[in-house]
């Protein structure tokens, strides 16, 4: 439990909360990005470099950008404002998640796992990671590759506009 971790964790949490509660959707996505970066830093502190960098690459470089594009394409900028404020809705939702949090924290603190293991001195090696990917987890890796391909094609197909451009120039009336 270091100060660095405290700072990272608090920043990450704060920006996650902001991402879920700000009114301006673009701000939400930007805050979400900050919390993704914060999580990557947590990975680094857990001495898992490659995962941390991959996290930044995938979430900041791809997912956040994708969200922003989706936001702009769906005129998200204009639906910024929560039109109606329904306290009951918020109360129930908030209570549910707070309750879950209480349950989780309680069970974590009571669990025996956290008592008997201290941090082990080990570092994730990229070489080991790669080798286990292609030896141990080859089948999941291939399945994942397939999944990604299918998802890529599927996403492109779903998002394809119903009509094709470019627009043909119209003939002039009476020329």
């Amino acid at each position, binding site marked *: 439990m270091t100060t660095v971790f405290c700072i990272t964790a608090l920043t990450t949490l704060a920006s996650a909360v902001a991402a879920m509660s700000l009114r*301006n959707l673009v701000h939400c996505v*930007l805050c979400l*990005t900050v919390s993704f970066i914060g999580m990557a830093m947590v990975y680094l502190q857990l001495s898992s470099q490659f995962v941390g960098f*991959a996290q930044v690459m995938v979430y900041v*470089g791809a997912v956040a*950008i994708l969200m922003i*594009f989706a936001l702009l394409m769906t005129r998200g900028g204009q639906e910024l404002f929560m039109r109606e404020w329904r306290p009951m809705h918020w109360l129930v939702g908030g209570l549910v998640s707070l309750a879950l949090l209480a349950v989780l924290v309680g069970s974590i603190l009571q669990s025996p796992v956290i008592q008997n293991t201290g941090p082990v001195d080990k570092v994730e090696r*990229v070489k080991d990671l790669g080798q286990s990917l292609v030896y141990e987890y080859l089948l999941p890796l291939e399945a994942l590759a397939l999944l990604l391909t299918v998802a890529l094609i599927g996403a492109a197909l779903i998002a394809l506009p119903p009509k094709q451009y470019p627009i043909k120039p119209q003939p002039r009336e009476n020329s």
Partner: protein
Amino acid sequence: MWFEDLLIQIKSVLVLNAPEGLRPILSAMLSATPILSAFGGLFAAVTLLERKMLGRIQNRYGPNRVGPFGIFQPVADGIKMLTKEDIVPKTADHSIHFLAPLLLLLTAMLGLSVIPYGEKLVAIRFEAGIVFFFAVGGAAELAVFMAGWASRNKYALLGSLRAIAQMVSYEIPLILSSVCVLMAAGTLSLDEVAKSQSGSMLSWYIMTPWGLMGCVLFLIATLAEVNRSPFDIPEAESELIAGHMTEYSGFKYAVFFLAEFVAMFAMCALTATLFLGGYHPPLPILAFIPGPFWLFAKLMVLVLLFIWIRGTMPRLRADQLMEFAWKFMLPMAVINLISTGCWIALGRGSLGWGLSALINLAAYGALSRWLSSRPNQQKRTYRFAEGPMHAA
């Protein structure tokens, strides 16, 4: 070697004399300061050099008013930029408008921290250094978006969306063409990559067919990634005024400019590390000249190449740019991976060299044939009028 040892000695003396608590911070700062100041100075020099060289290409002198041969032009530019009024549009999102250039600069500068400047001179020795480099580069897209969106200007938004689309699609060939080097070196760490090219020029990866093709692809993708001509579509001044930088002025604009140049330096340094032997001299005899010098020399050669290209080329259209990325760069990069694989599998000898060259040439020939058979790449012949005029 002596140069690197000297630097390390200085640093250790300074750090060891500092109080215990300050040491990590001091150490980090001492690593960062020389890099930042070197690249800051390089930025100033290159802005002048670029204008001079473009001027010469265009049969002009270039800046020659401030100081002898205009060498103080960057200083004058700096003063001008700093004293200019900082105008922020009224409807802009002020905080994001302010943060965007800083974030862009930050991402550009973070990339510099993993480049090996000498055998012992690496700011941060990550095992997955190149992944860090690309991951940080990915955040630049976000900064560009922030700039374009927060300006509340149609040109800025259009420019930033174009920039993002361009950077995202060129990141794929960029990474794929660097993967061939990683395959050959068998590591993700940049200083290992540089070390694997020690010896003479012949052991640089650019001396192999796949390395040459990879280097060309990497450079083209770099041009697109740092928005240099002919891929400067995000800032296409004839269409979009200045793209995402339209609403920036004064200091913030200068920061954008700086970030762009630093990103270019970082990419060039990466290219030099991956393909041109990094800090190694071209001949072992020249090893008495310190490594950082060689890296910067290679970097400058690449920067000059970029300036030369900028002075020559018209700009592609946004959709043609994407077309080029997907129809030429991506297949070529994938084929290059195969050719690298052949080279490695055949024992890195002349047989592998030949096969790799063959694969690359065949692929390049086929792709360029296919691309130049498209309707907008035709060689046309023109006729001259015969017979009667069109009746008026």
